[in-house]
């Protein structure tokens, strides 16, 4: 469980998160909102790239903001980025292995853990191939493999399906849905593809202008009139 309270982030004159309070319980949760709503900023606060001006984050009863950012990975925080960040100089195997080795889990189980993660996302090709030989979709899957290896507790996926064709999105959505039962991690996904969000997420939170405007079971939230207004800009009645 992760509880963010009264989170505020300002970049100069822009208030990116404005007293955001939200709780994510378990399973796969969605985080949606129009462009500039503060979704990625929220992820950046969790992974330590942005220091909030105010607010607290408790993750599984630990103060997340007090941890140095590189230690959060050891603690069990994993994230992917909007622009996919597979490391091109390394092989597929090494890409996943490096996340495992910095999670301080011991080297004896590493090989198996890495191969398991690759099998979980469905990357069944040569694990020692270089990343540059992979397709765009496979590179996205590799990122997910990096996120699920080595006992994650909190997995943040930032637009994991951006730029993917429909059939690859379907496979990715199946993988994302299985992350909580496979790893036990709370998974939070940001995406603009509402069919992907409804397919993967039991609960969904909606941000608009740095504030939480709705949170609850996904189907209900997507029908919520505030949410419709935030997305479509319906006139006030």
């Amino acid at each position, binding site marked *: 469980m992760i509880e963010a309270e009264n989170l505020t982030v300002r970049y100069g004159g822009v208030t990116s998160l404005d007293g955001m309070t939200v709780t994510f319980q378990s399973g796969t949760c969605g985080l949606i909102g129009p462009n500039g709503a503060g979704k990625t900023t929220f992820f950046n606060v969790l992974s330590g790239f942005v220091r909030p001006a105010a607010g607290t984050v408790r993750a599984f009863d630990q103060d997340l903001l007090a941890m140095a950012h590189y230690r959060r990975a050891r603690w069990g925080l994993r994230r992917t980025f909007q622009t996919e960040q597979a490391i091109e100089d*390394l092989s597929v195997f090494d890409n996943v292995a490096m996340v495992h080795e910095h999670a301080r889990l011991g080297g004896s189980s590493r090989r198996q853990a890495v191969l398991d993660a690759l099998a979980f996302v469905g990357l069944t090709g040569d694990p*020692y191939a*270089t990343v540059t030989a992979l397709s765009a979709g496979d590179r996205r899957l590799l990122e997910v493999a990096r996120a699920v290896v080595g006992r994650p507790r909190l997995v943040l996926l930032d637009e994991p399906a951006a730029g993917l064709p429909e059939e690859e999105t379907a496979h990715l959505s199946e993988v994302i849905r299985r992350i909580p039962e496979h790893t036990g991690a709370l998974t939070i996904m940001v995406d603009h593809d509402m069919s992907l969000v409804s397919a993967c997420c039991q609960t969904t939170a909606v941000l608009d202008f740095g504030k939480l405007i709705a949170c609850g079971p996904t189907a209900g939230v997507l029908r919520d009139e505030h949410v419709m207004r935030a997305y479509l800009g319906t006139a006030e009645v």
Partner: protein
Amino acid sequence: MALDTARITASAPKRSPLHMPPARALTRIGILAVLLLFVLLALPQVLSLYYIDAMTQAAVYSMVTLGLGVLVGRVGLYSLGQVAVMAVGAWAAARLLFATAQPFPLVLLEAGLITMVAGTLLGLPALRMRGLYLALITLMLAGAISVVLATTNFPNGGHGFLGYDSASAHVPAIRRPGVAASDPAYFRYSVIIAIAMFLLVLVHLRTRPGRAWAAIRQSESAALAAGVNTTFYKLWAFALASFMTGVAGGVMAGAVRYLYSITFQPQDSITLLAVVLMAGAYSLWGAVLAALLVQLLPALLNNWGVPADWLTILFGLGVLQALTTAPRGLADQVPKDLARLAGLLRRPARQSAPPEGSSR
């Protein structure tokens, strides 16, 4: 049929070098062993003393370019102070060789460690900045080191901390190891030390630090998200590069036997970075090639009566060429071009022969 096989070969995944099919890996190791034996055994027999000296310098500089290659190519940190770092290593080694009777390899190790501390301090700004500003700061610090060395001079067997005696009429030569007293023997000795440094880097690249550096070079935030302590690994890169450069300085001290501060010009660091970029900062072969370009090429030109100053222009053009058409340097481009040339030469022959599949 023929088309199908072609497609399969083309789409076969590119494997990382560590996991090549064993036959190819063995061939590679075989070629490397033959090459090393040639350099160690045959070269000193056929070369004149003039070229043996130049090759010893190339062996020394290969450790410096190797260190710079780790910084620039693997981590993305630009240093313009490596020649000054080498001067620190040479100073420390010379001081220890005059003051103590320790075996030569031990002195090299100590000089490397002393330089490692100094070079890591030089790298501290790297924690805060990258690119141009880091390069500028390392250049200024290197300039400061040169100024200090010009005033204190290199040790010449005198007493005190500096070990410099301005009044001594007879300056003793820096000693060499007993097994490598002659120039050809010292050349072999330098090559073996250089091989040890290349192996040290290889071990780093194949393990945890290598993977962490690859992540840092591509994206610092992605590295942090993967749990890499980027500060620690950047300092580690500076420590490793400085250690090797310090060892190089020690080997240099034994090679030239008399050290003068004029040998270590701050502007040489700039040329060195240019040549490393031109030869290829991303491969170990690039380091060898860069060392040959900065040390052997001037010796060749001198011998032919061409002023070595022309090299500055040549290196300038080389960097321009590398940055515009071959960002991974000559070490990457030349084999590719040769393969392409071989392909072009083979093609007409294949076209005239009947395709394999159609004969069935």
